[in-house]
C-alpha cells in the first residue's frame, strides 16, 4: 500500500431555486426552447444594466447560515473577465474579495464507520451568474456551434470547501450531506442532470518521505455528472498522481495547476488544453451594481427560517424514536418529505421502530421501483400508522402483514378495508383449539414425533390449519398444538 494521503477540496455550484434570474426578471425554468428566456439584460445588449434579485440573495443567505458561515455586514459584486462564446458580456458578475459568506463547515459521518465523523470546513460561499450553453452540432461534419442563452444569469451559489476530504468516499459523503441540506432548506432542487448542481474537485497527494512530506501538483477535475462519478474520478486521480509522481517526481509548484476532465465511460481523467485557461481574470468591482448590506435582523431571520436541519433531525429520531444511527440516516437521507411521512405515521402507530422498518424497507422499495415520490405514494401516512398499529396490537397477524400492505397499496384502501377484502378477521380461540384438536387426531405420527423431541414436526399442521381457516395465525396454531400434545 503506497504511503500517501489524498487531499481533496470541492467547488460546488448550486443553482438557486429562484423563479427569475440573478440580475433580470427572465424565467429560470429548465428545458425551454433555446433563447426564449432572455432579455436585453441577460444577453448583455449594449446599454442594458443588471438589477439584483433580492430573492436570490435571501436563498444564498439561508444556505450560508445553514453551512455555519460568517456573514459579513457588507458584500459587493465583481466582474470576472474572460472570453467565451456563451458569456455574452465578456465577463461574469461574481464575487471576488468580499464574498457574501465565509468560514463555515459541514459535518460528515458514515454509519458504516468507513471514515471518522468530521467537519469539512467551508472556505466561502458566493453568488454569481451562470453563463449560457454552447451547443455543438457535429452532424455530417458541419460542426456548427450554436449558443443558447436561456441559462445566462441564472443564480449560482459557489460553495468552496477547504481541502479537508481524504478519499472519494468522504467527498461523496460531503456531497450527499450538502445536497440533503440544500433540499431540506429548499434553496435548490440539486438536480445534476439539469445542471442545478455541478462539482469540480481539486485533488493532490501528500506523500510521506524520509524528510517530511511531498505534495504533488494540484489537479482540478471537471465534467463529473454524478456523485458516484466524483468518487470514482477522485480515486482514479489519486492513483494516477501516485504513478506520475513515481515516474517523474514532479512536485507542487513544478508544473502549473492542471485541469482534467472525467471520462465516465472509460473511467479515466484526461488532460484538457491548458491554453484555454488563464488565472488572470482582471477582477474589479462591478460599477453597475451597488454594494449590498446585510442587517443583523436579516441574518437572524434567515437563521430562523431554516427549520430542523438533517443532522439535528437524525439525533432527534435516535433520541425520541429509539432508531439506530443507520435507521435515522436512511430516513433522513430520503429527504424532508419522507421524514414528515414517517413522523405522521408514528403519531398514529405509536411505535417509531416498527414504522421505520415498514418505511425504510417496503415503502422505499416501492418508491424506488416505481420511481415515484413519497407525495405520490398510495398509502397515506395515517393509513400506514393504523396498519402498523394493528400489527403491533396483534389485531393483524404479522404473517399476513405484507399481504395486507400490498392490497392497501394496490387498491388505495385503508387497513380495515384491506383486511376485510382478504377475509382476515380475529379467529376465536376455541375454534382454533378445535381445529388443532381434530388435526392432531388425524395425524398421530406427528404427535409421536413431537413427543419424541422433534418439535418442528408441528410445522406440517400449520399449513393444514390455514387451509381450514386462512385467519389462523401460524404462531398460535403452533403453540396450541404443542400445548395439546404436552397434555396428551
Amino acid at each position, binding site marked *: 500500500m503506497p504511503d500517501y494521503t489524498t487531499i481533496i477540496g470541492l467547488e460546488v455550484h448550486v443553482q438557486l431555486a429562484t423563479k427569475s434570474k440573478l440580475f433580470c426578471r427572465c424565467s429560470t425554468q429548465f428545458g425551454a426552447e433555446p433563447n426564449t428566456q432572455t432579455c436585453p439584460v441577460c444577453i*448583455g*445588449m*449594449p*446599454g*442594458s444594466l443588471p438589477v439584483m434579485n433580492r430573492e436570490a440573495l435571501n436563498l444564498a443567505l439561508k444556505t450560508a447560515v445553514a453551512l455555519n458561515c460568517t456573514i459579513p455586514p457588507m458584500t459587493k459584486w465583481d466582474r470576472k473577465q474572460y472570453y467565451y462564446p456563451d458569456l*455574452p458580456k465578456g465577463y461574469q458578475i461574481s464575487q471576488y474579495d468580499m464574498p457574501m459568506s465565509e468560514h463555515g463547515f459541514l459535518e460528515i459521518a458514515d454509519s458504516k464507520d468507513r471514515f471518522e465523523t468530521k467537519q469539512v470546513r467551508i472556505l466561502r460561499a458566493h453568488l454569481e451568474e451562470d453563463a449560457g450553453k454552447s451547443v455543438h452540432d457535429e452532424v455530417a461534419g458541419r460542426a456548427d456551434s450554436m449558443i443558447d442563452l436561456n441559462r445566462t444569469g441564472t443564480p449560482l451559489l459557489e460553495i468552496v470547501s477547504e481541502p479537508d476530504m481524504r478519499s472519494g468516499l468522504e467527498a461523496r459523503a460531503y456531497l450527499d450531506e450538502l445536497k440533503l441540506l440544500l433540499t431540506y432548506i429548499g434553496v435548490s432542487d440539486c438536480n445534476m442532470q439539469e445542471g442545478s448542481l455541478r462539482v469540480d474537485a481539486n485533488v493532490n497527494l501528500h506523500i510521506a518521505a524520509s524528510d517530511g512530506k511531498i505534495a504533488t501538483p494540484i489537479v482540478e477535475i471537471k465534467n463529473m455528472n454524478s456523485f458516484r462519478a466524483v468518487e470514482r474520478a477522485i480515486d482514479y486521480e489519486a492513483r494516477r498522481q501516485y504513478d506520475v509522481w513515481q515516474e517523474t517526481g514532479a512536485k507542487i509548484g513544478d508544473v502549473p495547476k492542471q485541469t482534467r476532465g472525467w471520462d465516465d465511460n472509460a473511467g479515466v481523467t484526461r488532460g484538457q488544453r491548458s491554453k484555454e485557461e488563464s488565472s488572470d481574470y482582471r477582477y*474589479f468591482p462591478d460599477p*453597475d451594481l*451597488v454594494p449590498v448590506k446585510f442587517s443583523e435582523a436579516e441574518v437572524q431571520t434567515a437563521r430562523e427560517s431554516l427549520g430542523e436541519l438533517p443532522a439535528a433531525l437524525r439525533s432527534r429520531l435516535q433520541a425520541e424514536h429509539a432508531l439506530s444511527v443507520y435507521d435515522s440516516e436512511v430516513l433522513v437521507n430520503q429527504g424532508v418529505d419522507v421524514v414528515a411521512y414517517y413522523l405522521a405515521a408514528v403519531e398514529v402507530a405509536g411505535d417509531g421502530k416498527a414504522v421505520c422498518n415498514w418505511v425504510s424497507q417496503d415503502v422505499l422499495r416501492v418508491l424506488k421501483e416505481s420511481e415515484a415520490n413519497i407525495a405520490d405514494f398510495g398509502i397515506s401516512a395515517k393509513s400506514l400508522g393504523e396498519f402498523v398499529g394493528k400489527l403491533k396490537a396483534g389485531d393483524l397477524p404479522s404473517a399476513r402483514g405484507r399481504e395486507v400492505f400490498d392490497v392497501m397499496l394496490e387498491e388505495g384502501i385503508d387497513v380495515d378495508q384491506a383486511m376485510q377484502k382478504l377475509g382476515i378477521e380475529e379467529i376465536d380461540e376455541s375454534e382454533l383449539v378445535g381445529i388443532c384438536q381434530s388435526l392432531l387426531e388425524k395425524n398421530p405420527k406427528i404427535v409421536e414425533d413431537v413427543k419424541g423431541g422433534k418439535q418442528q414436526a408441528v410445522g406440517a399442521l400449520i399449513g393444514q390449519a390455514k387451509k381450514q381457516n386462512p385467519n389462523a395465525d401460524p404462531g398460535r396454531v403452533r403453540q396450541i398444538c404443542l400445548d395439546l400434545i404436552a397434555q396428551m
Partner: protein
Amino acid sequence: MSLTSLSAVEQSRKLQAGEVSAVDLARAYLDRIDEHNPGVGAFLRYDAERALTAARHIDERRKAGEPLGPLAGVPVAVKDILAEQGERTTCASRMLEEFRAPYDSTVIARLKAADAVLLGRLNMDEFAMGGSTENSALGKTSNPWDLKCSPGGSSGGSAAAVAADFAPLTIGTDTGGSIRQPAAFCGITGMKPTYGRVSRFGLVAFASSLDQVGPMARSAEDLALLYGAIAGHDPQDSTSLNQPIGDLSTISQPLKGLRIGYAKEHFAAGLDGEVDEAVRTALKVYEALGATLVEVSLPHSKYAVATYYVIAPCEASSNLARYDGVHYGYRSDVAKITAELSAQRAALEEAGERRAAEDLDTPLVRMYRQSRSEAFGPEVKRRIMLGTYALSAGYYDAYYLKALKVRRLIRQDFDKVFEQVDVLAGPTTATPAFELGSLVDDPLAMYLVDLYTVSANLAGVPAMSLPCGFSKSGLPIGLQLQAKPLAEETLLRAAYMYQNETEWHLQRPAL
C-alpha cells in the same frame, strides 16, 4: 424672426397657445438641417418623415384636448449612444454600425413620454471616447462657429446641433467632460447632472462609474425644461438615485447671498489668457449681482486626469468586451479566416515549423481578434489596452486601486469646498476650440482638454458649462459651474442669474 431662433421654452409656450404647430416647428428645423448639416455634420442620421409623423400626432392630440407631456411638440435630438427600440444605435463605431436596439433606453422612453419630437441621432466620438468628435468612424462634425475647428467631444454632435439651430434641445453624455467641453467650444449651455440623477439604462456604457446623461441647450431655462423630463429615479438602474428633483419652476428666483468659490488650481499655468479674462469677468458679474467670492482649493485636482485615465479605460476595457463578433455587431468574415488559417497552418507544417503551426489561433479566437481589430478605431483600442493592462494581475493595486483612493480624495476636496460655497466657478476648458486635426496625433494633449472637467465625474457632483465670452478669433469661451451632489437646481439658478445679465448665450454663429 424664424421659429428656430426661439428658445425651447418660448416654442413650448407658442405650441400650447396654438400659435405654432409641432409640424411647422419640426419642418423649420428639418429645413435648416437639410441645408446646413452637410457642412456641420452634427447629425449622423435624421428621418424627416418619422419626425413629421410624430409632430402631426402631437398636433392631433392637442387638438383633441388630450393631456400632453412637458416637451409636447418640442424637437429634441439625441447622441447616438442611447438605445432606441428598432432604431440604429451606433456609438459612431463600425462595431455597432448595423446594431438596432431591441428596447428603449430610459431617457428615450422619458422623452417619448414627454411628447418630444425626436429629430434624429447625433455624431460623437466612437463609444464616447475622445474630446473632439474626430474619433467618429461614421462622419465628421465641425464647430458651427468655425468649420475648421472641432466642436469638442465626445458630445460634439449634440453641441454643434444646438449651436447651429438644428434642435433647441439635445441629449449628450459626459464621462470626463463630454457635455461641458463641447458646450464650451460651441457656445451653448450643457449640464452633467449628479451621478445617478439620470438613468443610465440603455446608455451604451463607456465607463459605468463616470458616465452620466445630460441635457444640452442654449440657456439654463431651456436646460431645466429638458432636465426635468429626463431626470429621476429608475428601478432598472441600480445606481439610480431615489431622490426627488427640486422645483425647477423656481430657477428664475435669484439665490440670496450666493457664495461663489473659485479654485486657485483652476487659474494656473496652461490657462489661455482670453479664457482667464472671460472667466474672471464672469465672476465679477456675479459679484455685481451680490454674490460673495471665496477663494478655495482643490489640492488633489492635479491628479484628476491621471486618475481618470486609469479608471475610465479599466471600465471601458470591461464594458467593450461584449463586442466579440458573436452575438451582434460587427463580425469579421469567418470563411475567409478559416481559409487563411488552414493555409497558414499548411505552410508552416510544410516548412517544418510544427510548433508555430500548433500555436496558430483557433478560428474562434481569430474571429474575436479580427472582428475587434477591424471594427474598433485607434482611440478605442488604445483605451482597451490601457485598461486591460491596468487591471492585469500584479498591476491592479498599483493602478486601479490607487486610482480609487485618489478618487476618494478628490471627492473629499469637493465636500470641503461645498461646506464653504454654494457654487464653484471656473473655466470649462483651458483654451477655446482647437482646429480639427491639430491634436489627433497627440493623444496625451487630447487627454488634457479634460483638465477642468474630469473631477466632477470622479466626484459625482453636478456641473455645467455656459458661454461667458468670445476669443478674438470669434470662438466661444465656457464658464464651468459645479455644485454639491443633487444640487442641480442651484446650478440652474446660478446659470439663470448670469444669463439674465449677459447675452453670450444668445449669440449665433453665421452659417
